[in-house]
């Protein structure tokens, strides 16, 4: 009896971990490049400044944020297209990005990231001299 109960317990834990990973949603992003920087814009509705985490670890940029909604007590879902409680996405960066100079701004659930390039990697205009 005890063994069976234990097994069921462990299975429950594993599925809940799986569920936890599934519950992270992939935010849609726009990524574009300009001469001096790369720009990332991500839709993360419901994410506040307090719950947003941006991290660069060994050239991997990770963006994570919990969806914060003030929902009343005792609410039950009848329809849900957003089925998760957090957004998470990761990107690998190239060496040219100056990771110390990354800037982030969060407005109305839209995250704007500016990833400046190092001075040495910026595009330069080459003057063509008249012969």
């Amino acid at each position, binding site marked *: 009896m005890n063994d069976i109960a234990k097994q069921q317990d462990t299975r429950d834990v594993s599925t809940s971990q799986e569920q936890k990973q599934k519950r992270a949603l992939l935010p849609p992003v726009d990524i574009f*490049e300009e001469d001096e920087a790369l720009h990332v814009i991500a*839709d993360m509705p419901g994410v506040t400044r307090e719950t947003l985490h941006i991290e660069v670890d060994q050239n991997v940029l990770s963006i994570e944020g919990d969806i914060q909604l003030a*929902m009343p007590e005792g609410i039950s*879902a*009848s*329809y849900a297209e957003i*089925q*998760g409680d957090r957004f998470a996405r990761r990107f690998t960066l190239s060496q040219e990005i100056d990771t110390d100079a990354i800037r982030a701004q969060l407005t*109305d*659930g839209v995250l704007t990231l500016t990833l400046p390039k190092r001075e040495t990697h910026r595009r330069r205009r080459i003057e063509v001299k008249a012969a």
Partner: protein
Amino acid sequence: MFGDFWRTNVPKSSDFDWFQQVLDEMFPSAASDIRSVPRGAFPMINMGRTDDAILVYVFAPGLKAEQLELSVQDNVLTLSGTREPAAAENGRPQRAYYRRERFGGEFSRTIALPDGVDTERAEARAAHGVVEIRLPKREEMKPRRVEIKAA
């Protein structure tokens, strides 16, 4: 918080789509809900209910309150508006894009509301890119406690 939405047995839209496709193949006459939408429509919508109200959450990141128009008619809620594509902001369209996944342009979505909603007293408020629409239930639709009298 949002766990409440997760724990319910609402079918995942993607699972449901797959199931619907199989159904359509096997029974060509099977019809899908005329208001059902493929996954990924903008803005995404969640709906929930409490004892005294229906709550609709519209996930509309980057939209100001005046950019989203809400209207209710015959228990059908319509959301429409325009989200400017990000590229237009700086007036520099010549950009090298690597990804363009975010929605841009005009949108219009409708959802059917359950019966017994008092649309006159509907209120909406926006925070962090999510618009919460609260539609109170009519008095007669609220759950009532039935007293059992001793014989």
